[in-house]
């Protein structure tokens, strides 16, 4: 009855209730870490108030796609995309790595009938909750500073959640390949330059052609484009490419993550 093959077949299925249990576990763990949760919400605001508001007082205006806008309107959606990436990468890469390799929480989880799909969906669900928690004060601050209209508030939230799923799926996939804390820190080598260079602080039009081409294929660039065009109408660009790019990240990242978690934990 409970031979390994039956159990394995059972475990490949997806059950929403089991994914929800993964989310519940994360909620329970983080209830003991309110300070970490709260400080995670404040961090993006610090970027908005310094790189946004302070620099705005010196920069004045920026011209993007022939449109002249004040710097705060330009930089705020860029910083929203960049800080969302930071939150999501931290959540998916570091926390999954910790649970897979250090605390071995998933060794315990997989003793119960839970599949890789359940785990990935559950972790992504939790990542979405955290992203919403961090993005909401940021978007509210944007509205308060007059750089997000009432109509753009729900769009901005939607955009950050799309970004969170895409980065979260890829992040989970990356986390399964990491073996040491030092390798995890090397993820920052990819994330940090993206944070500052993908059209977040200044338009990419200023770069040499080759650099500009490189920047536009990095995963943060479509997020910045998406959020910027969905905020106060800065640079109305076609977002279908961005959405397709992020959709691809979600599907490929998610599939790799499921496959890797299954193979890692069922050897």
């Amino acid at each position, binding site marked *: 009855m409970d031979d390994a093959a039956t159990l394995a077949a059972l475990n490949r299925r997806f059950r929403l209730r089991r994914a929800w249990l993964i989310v519940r576990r994360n909620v329970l763990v983080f209830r003991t870490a309110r300070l970490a949760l709260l400080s995670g919400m404040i*961090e993006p605001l*610090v970027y908005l108030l310094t790189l946004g508001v302070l*620099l705005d007082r010196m920069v004045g205006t920026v011209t993007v796609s022939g449109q002249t806008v004040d710097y705060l309107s330009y930089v705020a959606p860029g910083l929203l995309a960049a800080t969302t990436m930071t939150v999501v990468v931290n959540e998916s890469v570091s926390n999954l790595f910790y649970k897979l390799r250090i605390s071995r929480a998933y060794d315990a989880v997989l003793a119960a009938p839970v599949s890789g799909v359940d785990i990935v969906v559950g972790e992504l669900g939790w990542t979405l909750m955290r992203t919403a928690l961090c993005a909401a004060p940021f978007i509210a601050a944007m509205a308060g500073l007059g750089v997000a209209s009432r109509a753009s508030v729900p769009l901005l939230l939607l955009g950050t959640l799309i970004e969170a799923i895409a980065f979260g799926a890829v992040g989970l996939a990356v986390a399964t390949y990491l073996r040491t804390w030092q390798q995890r820190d*090397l993820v920052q080598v990819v994330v940090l330059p993206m944070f500052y260079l993908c059209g977040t602080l200044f338009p990419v039009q200023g770069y040499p052609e080759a650099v500009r081409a490189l920047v536009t294929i990095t995963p943060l660039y479509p997020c910045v484009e998406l959020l910027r065009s969905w905020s106060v109408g800065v640079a109305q660009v076609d977002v279908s490419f961005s959405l397709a790019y992020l959709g691809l990240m979600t599907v490929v990242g998610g599939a790799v993550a499921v496959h890797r978690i299954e193979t890692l934990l069922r050897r």
Partner: protein
Amino acid sequence: MRLAWRVVEFQVYHYRRTWQSSVVGTVVFPVLALLVLGIGVDRLIGASDALGGIRYLDFVAPAVLAGTAMQVAATEATMPIFVGLRLTRTAEAMLATPIGPSGLVDGHLLWICLRTATASLVLFGLSAWLGVFTISTLVPVLGICLLVALAHAGPLLAYSVRQDTAYGLVAISRLFVLPMMLGAGTLAPVDLMPPFLAYVARATPLWHGAQLCRAAAGATMPAWTIAVHVGYLLAWAGIGYAFARRTFNRRLGL
């Protein structure tokens, strides 16, 4: 002092295996910040009245040096203490030797000075190449950076040794280190901030360090201001050191 060097020796052995990851935070990131702000944002700002006629690069690069010194202290005086005491327990092994709690403090501070010196040297080279500093200011700039690192390291050591979980360390990096890095008169002159926040910024040791680095880069300021900046940093370093030793001895002493 001889015992403190044994702690440094441990750090060197440890660092030989882990240097890649810490180089990211203390060299790669500052170099990136210097280029992004000093070239990218500099181009956006052009000439701003708030800067009093100097290039933004000349304004921000000295602050990146001071900020990096703080970052080294914030990296090396927090997590390694927690890990050594609670996770790998290498600190317990050291405490079982004549090194003792005071030697542990001295050793970590020495190590922080070495790390700050190397990181600052890289940044000094780059900013001197960009024309921010003249080579002759190397020694004073290194001295300022060490002072900034020590001003933050003492209090952070005392804080870290009291932590039972890592959450407090995450919180201090997000709630104090990052806001100071970006807001303590580093990216923009404090006069551009609301008056209350400007006072808070002026009270941070980082602002005084950044101002000193700016003076070394050629910003004109009266001698007494420089004396105040140096004195303020020395006070933080001295009181922080005494505080760290006392806390280590109380928590870890026999």
